[in-house]
């Protein structure tokens, strides 16, 4: 018993058919603590084999204690209940007994919180959620349209300063990453086309493949993806964080619609900058194709350029422009909407950013498919 004076200990000794548990030492939750199972096993080792029919707890040798002691006593009590033994706690101090009671009571009281649901409920919730989201999206697009009309009527009240800084953020600052990705896509397209065209001796048509697919598809889509990851996520995080800090509420109570103040500058900036970035991306895609052609297929750049010019006409350029304007709008709307819908917590802001990227990419792919059908029907 005098082994280590400060270590928490529980020594069990058999006295007839009852067990006396002497608690002692310093009981600190962050230190090593005796385990009830071990104490029991030790007591059974020396004494009679049958289970004790009473347990008496003594704590006069305890120097310091905290919740760990309370928990230990609760465990002993719990064991006694299941083993059908009597638990004598009369030798404990009033405070400890009270805390053990409190713990026992807390174990019983459980306020159910609805986090786990069955399969059918989840499906139902997902369905209603999808409907609600569609409606929210339509609402939001409507609000943006109204706000846009207001902007045309009174351009003086628009936050041009915010709009310009957003343009710089989402346009000029995105140039390096857009350059790299579109250049590499052009390069890849040229390599892929060269494999087949070479077999027919039609090397020069690499320029057609790269030019057409860049202008009609890849330029706008790649720019859209980059914008979604860079700017859409940033919009959602920014606005979501403002919502958490009640900044959106402050705007509302001042009578400033958040759509006018936060969404329109971003929407306008992205709608204007995405076509510019896309045109730039198209150019770099063709440059990538040209470099592959010159170095691998030995087509002189001048011949490549003339071939590109002969295939690309104004309709391809306008397809690229139309797509990019729509993609820019979709990314801005999805980013801002997710930000405004964000839950007021750090995790909520994170989810909003993720969801903004997913939503904008999904919307862009859907829009791209619609465009493909539409342009086919119209013969553009």
């Amino acid at each position, binding site marked *: 018993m005098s082994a280590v004076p400060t270590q928490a200990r529980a020594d069990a000794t058999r006295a007839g058919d009852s067990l006396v548990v002497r608690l002692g030492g310093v009981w600190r939750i962050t230190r090593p603590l005796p385990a009830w199972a071990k104490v029991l096993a030790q007591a059974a080792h020396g004494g009679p084999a049958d289970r004790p029919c009473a347990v008496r707890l003594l704590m006069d040798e305890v*120097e310091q204690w905290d919740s760990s002691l309370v928990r230990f006593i609760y465990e002993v009590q719990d064991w006694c209940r299941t083993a059908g033994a009597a638990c004598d706690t009369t030798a404990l101090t009033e405070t400890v007994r009270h805390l053990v009671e409190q713990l026992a009571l807390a174990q019983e009281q459980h306020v159910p919180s609805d986090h786990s649901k069955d399969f059918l409920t989840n499906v139902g919730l997902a369905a209603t959620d999808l409907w609600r989201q569609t409606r929210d999206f339509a609402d939001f697009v409507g609000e943006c349209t109204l706000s846009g009309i207001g902007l045309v009527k009174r351009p003086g009240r628009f936050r041009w300063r915010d709009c310009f800084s957003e343009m710089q953020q989402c346009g000029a600052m995105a140039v390096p990453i857009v350059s790299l990705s579109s250049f590499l896509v052009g390069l890849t397209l040229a390599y892929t086309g060269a494999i087949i065209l070479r077999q027919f001796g039609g090397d020069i048509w690499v320029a057609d493949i790269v030019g057409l697919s860049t202008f009609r598809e890849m330029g706008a889509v790649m720019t859209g993806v980059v914008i979604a990851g860079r700017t859409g996520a940033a919009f959602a995080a920014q606005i979501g964080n403002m919502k958490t800090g009640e900044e959106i509420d402050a705007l509302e109570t001042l009578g400033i619609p958040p759509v006018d103040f936060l969404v329109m500058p971003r929407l306008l900036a992205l709608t204007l900058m995405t076509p510019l970035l896309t045109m730039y991306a198209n150019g770099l895609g063709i440059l990538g194709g040209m470099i592959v052609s010159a170095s691998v297929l030995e087509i002189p750049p001048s011949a490549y350029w003339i071939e590109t010019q002969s295939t690309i006409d104004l309709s391809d350029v306008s397809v690229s422009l139309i797509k990019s304007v729509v993609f820019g709008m979709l990314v801005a709307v999805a980013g801002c909407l997710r930000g405004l819908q964000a839950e007021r*917590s750090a995790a909520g802001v994170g989810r909003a950013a993720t969801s903004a990227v997913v939503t904008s990419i999904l919307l862009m792919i859907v829009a791209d498919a619609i465009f493909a059908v539409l342009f086919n029907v119209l013969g553009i």
Partner: protein
Amino acid sequence: MNATPEPKTAPPAIEVQGLACRYADTMVLNGVTFTVREGELFFVIGGSGCGKTTLLRHLIGLLKPAQGTVRYFGEDFTGAGLATRRNLLKTFGVLYQNAALWSSMTLRENVALPLEQYTTLSRRERDEIVALKLAQVGLAGFEDYFPAELSGGMRKRAGLARALALDPRIVFFDEPSAGLDPVLSRRLDELIRQIRGTFGTTMVIVSHELASIYALADRVIMLDRDAQGIIAEGRPRDLAATSDDPRVQEFLTRGGEETKTA
């Protein structure tokens, strides 16, 4: 703690020596020296911007003092190595002004995290401690709730449960009544007193709430922005009655108006 009284020679819970802190070029506090005895309900008071929260952030090690030392139970905290520092961090809990519960975790996970970090308890044992702590702050059964699903007062109490998770010997409170109505604020005061009564925990409370100061404080220090340090120390009632410093008088009697605190 409460089983046997500490011997008279025991070092004080907190000992601050010549603490100075500055942000960039502005000196906020200079030469702050005080001690907090074990089991004391100690208030740091003063007007807004006097450096109360700054002092607290130095005490709990979030800011490094420009000068001076902080000792816990005689052990140096300011210049402590990683191991000692980790050890000392276990001896205190902090209730932040906005409770600072981790929003992506349930109350159970919030309270259990310190236990997971610093103890070898099994999952079941941890859950029992969590249940006990939540029951102590009057939130029995709310284990599976997320902080966002609770009211401000409940969040604060949950924050207290987390601060108490490791049964710290010292608990720091940053403006515990901020954002609470007078009734909830009084309940929290009650809870603070009750926990001190049960575990003999030392409580250091940063506050400018007169009602709490008069109701709870064993001793206060008052900070002042221009003095960059302590301008008064003692029991709040004594200070209000005897101090001839106009700044102390003004603060403790709410600018001359008679206090209506119970």
